[in-house]
């Protein structure tokens, strides 16, 4: 029997898609620049069916790619032409919310926000909050180790997942992590989270829940210059304050948000800083005053304090929809995601502006200023033939982040998009060592192939010439 017939038999015809037009709707995720039509899409309804599908793939050497909501921005769910897509959108049950043990057990297709909604009656919530939290699924969050605006204080997915049931590349089902984080042995769960779907498919996740903070205070501080806003961020951190979130939007980004309805941002300010503090009321009140003072000292032109929860929601709605809102001011754009050490924010922004000028391309900036995670939005018009120039600029920006001692990606992942840039950040031995981990989980390389690691087919036959890592040049690290 052919593998496709086996899959139909294992899952039932109604859970398999083979029609070409239908398959095409799965050919890309949130990153539309890469499109590959899969040979088949399967929609299992249980972990057992996921395992059954993977076993068929393993037997026949068919590559498979797991897909959640398809909101990823690095092409992590890009299909493989001769392979299948395993959609987890029918695994959407919340199995348990356990307020006593402060955890919830959910299937991978549950959205990030729905976990918090389910926990809300108990005064609890799930802390990581990627901007797409109303859409993106916990399975995707586990694959990408998603962060979000509030990860400055609360950390990432990896800090909030206690256990996962996973289907390994040979179709066996196992459990990583456990009922307590204190477990003997290698932290396989920690390594699995953020592996971008290359080590297996998660079919159930146990997440940690936190008590909602007693107080939340949010402000938007306007600045006449981006540098002023950057200095204010440095000032806040230097004062020993750990805000729940510090976000910056530059003028172009604010214009995009303003083009969508209900924007609360000042349309003509050069930069706006969203600062949110949460925690016990007295602690928050004291530090909130201090933050305002620091903003003023660094030249803030206007400070707007969120009056109530609704007002705060408006501030966040604008911020979280910023990427998509850019669609209102530019026909096409690339979303970049790089990280620099916090102290080099002003420098990197200046250099991005200069590079954008040189390329004659507009770049809007929305980013998690508190942790140095930039999201430059490279605006261009496909119709005016700017695609290649814009793409080049976008790649240059990511590599600039590495040059300044940072990272290629803070949260969107490497995926298909940045695999070819990985040698800028890691040496051959680093990558080879990571591949040893991969081979332990997936010796045949069937699980989401072509992602994270550069391959000759993807990046050209000859890898780029060796260039010393910037940290190496700076004497921070040594290459032996």
């Amino acid at each position, binding site marked *: 029997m052919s593998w496709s017939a086996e899959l139909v038999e294992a899952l039932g015809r109604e859970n398999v898609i083979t029609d070409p037009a239908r398959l095409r709707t799965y050919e890309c995720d949130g990153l539309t620049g890469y499109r590959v039509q899969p040979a088949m899409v399967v929609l299992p309804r249980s972990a057992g069916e996921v395992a059954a599908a993977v076993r068929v793939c393993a037997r026949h050497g068919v590559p498979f790619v797991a897909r959640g909501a398809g909101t990823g921005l690095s092409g992590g769910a890009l299909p493989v032409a001769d392979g299948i897509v395993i959609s987890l959108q029918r695994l959407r049950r919340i199995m348990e919310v356990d307020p006593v043990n402060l955890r919830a057990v959910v299937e991978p297709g549950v959205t990030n926000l729905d976990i918090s909604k389910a926990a809300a009656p108990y005064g609890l919530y799930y802390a990581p909050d990627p901007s797409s939290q109303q859409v993106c699924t916990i399975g995707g969050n586990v694959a990408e180790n998603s962060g979000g605006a509030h990860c*400055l204080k609360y950390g990432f997915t990896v800090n909030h997942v206690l256990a996962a049931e996973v289907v390994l590349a040979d179709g066996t089902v196992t459990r990583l992590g456990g009922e307590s*984080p204190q477990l003997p042995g290698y932290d396989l769960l920690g390594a699995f989270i953020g592996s971008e779907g290359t080590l297996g498919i998660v079919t159930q996740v146990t997440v940690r829940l936190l008590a909602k903070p007693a107080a939340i205070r949010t402000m938007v501080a306007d600045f006449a210059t981006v540098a002023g806003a950057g200095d204010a961020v440095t000032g806040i951190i230097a004062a020993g304050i750990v805000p729940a979130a510090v976000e910056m939007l530059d003028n172009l980004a604010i214009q995009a948000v303003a083009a969508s309805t209900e924007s609360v941002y000042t349309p003509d300010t050069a930069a706006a800083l969203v600062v949110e503090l949460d925690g016990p009321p007295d602690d928050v009140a004291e530090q909130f005053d201090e933050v305002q003072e620091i903003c003023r000292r660094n030249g803030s032109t206007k400070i707007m304090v969120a009056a109530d929860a609704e007002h705060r929601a408006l501030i966040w709605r604008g911020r979280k929809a910023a990427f998509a809102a850019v669609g209102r001011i530019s026909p096409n754009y690339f979303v970049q995601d790089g990280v620099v*050490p916090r102290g080099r924010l002003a420098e990197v922004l200046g250099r991005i502006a200069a590079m954008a000028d040189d390329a004659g391309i507009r770049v809007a900036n929305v980013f998690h200023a508190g942790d140095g995670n930039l999201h430059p939005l490279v605006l261009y018009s496909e119709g005016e033939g700017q695609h290649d120039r814009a793409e080049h600029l976008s790649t240059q920006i990511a590599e600039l982040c590495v040059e300044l001692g940072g990272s290629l990606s803070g949260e969107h992942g490497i995926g298909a998009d940045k695999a070819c840039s990985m040698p800028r950040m890691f040496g051959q031995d680093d990558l080879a*060592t990571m591949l040893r981990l991969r081979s332990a989980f997936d010796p045949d390389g069937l699980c989401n192939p072509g992602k994270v690691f550069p391959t000759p087919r993807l990046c050209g036959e000859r890898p780029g010439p060796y260039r010393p890592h910037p940290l190496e040049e700076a004497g921070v690290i040594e290459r032996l």
Partner: protein
Amino acid sequence: MSTVTTYRPSTLADLRDAMAESARAGERLAVAGAGTAVEWGGAPEHDAVLDTTAMSGLISYNPTDMTVAVQAGMPLRSLQETLAGNAQWVALDPALAAAGATVGGLVATADAGPVRHTFGASRDSVIGVTVVLADATVARSGGHVIKNVAGYDLAKLFHGSLGTLGVLAEVVLRLHPRPSATATLAVPCHAAAAFDLGGRLIHGSLEPVAVEWCGRVLLARFDGTAGGVEDRGRRAMALAGDGAEWLPGDDERAAAHWAAVADLVRGAEGDTVVRLGTAPDRTPSLAALVAREAAAHDVDAAMTSSPFAGAHTVRLRGGTASQHAAVVTALRAAAPAATVCRWTPGLRDQLPAWGEPPPAVAVLRAVKRAFDPNDRLGKGRFAPWF
């Protein structure tokens, strides 16, 4: 008596050379830092020791970025002293730090202290590592920024690896600001009441940074601004009721309470110390089991728990090795995720180094094979699992 070679590199290059040399010699290697966790799990068979304590330098520290890079042999205690100058710290307070435990050792043992309640274990503070594998391959993962998802996170893999995958050479850590005020709530109570009160402190959004139940006293530490800590103190005391004490930061009694936690975890010559992990709500039943088994086998048992992190340490004192073995066996039956960190003399002869293996043991074995195919590093540390 012993004829083992000792390598004591002081630089990454030395370390790599030492690994290459020992690989050529085909030696089985035991990796050691300060030796504070040398007994954890199985006793490795080895022909040579790789001592990391000469790799104790600060590589880079930029207070503005709130990150620090150190050589893995640096004692955590001295790192914290350096950071204190900028009112910063690594949010990690393992008991063994006072005994000189190194940063690399703490990662390799997946250790943590009471603030695990808020900040997790060492894995949650590590943002980058450089490791040297058994074949002398030098590999990095992570980096110098807090937020980074590029590539696999090898630091996680090495977390809890007990020297069996490679040698941690350099570690990059994220830092937190030191709070301006701190205070401790101390409430004498049994485990069930402690779990209940701890839950109320958490659900009441009082945000204790640590909740520990040790020696029949619930300890909750609160960090924050002076006004904030004071306010929470009032509310915590109201929740705690009679017998509760509020001990501001510099109170000697607070320090004594927390020192008792660390003392228990470290244990002393002749003790058996076991780390266990359970779901939070199993804390009271585990406490009852410990008391019952200790009484049944005539051993003096003490326990400290971070109930909401599901992390417990049990110390057995007095009695014979076989009495200890009986208690440990009972504990393993209740909580298979157990690590024996200190073995009373003779206990090793009575017990396998580990109990029931975790469900993913096949993957653990595959990882071990991929990183150290010749089983040179820490051979037997995870026996009988692999």
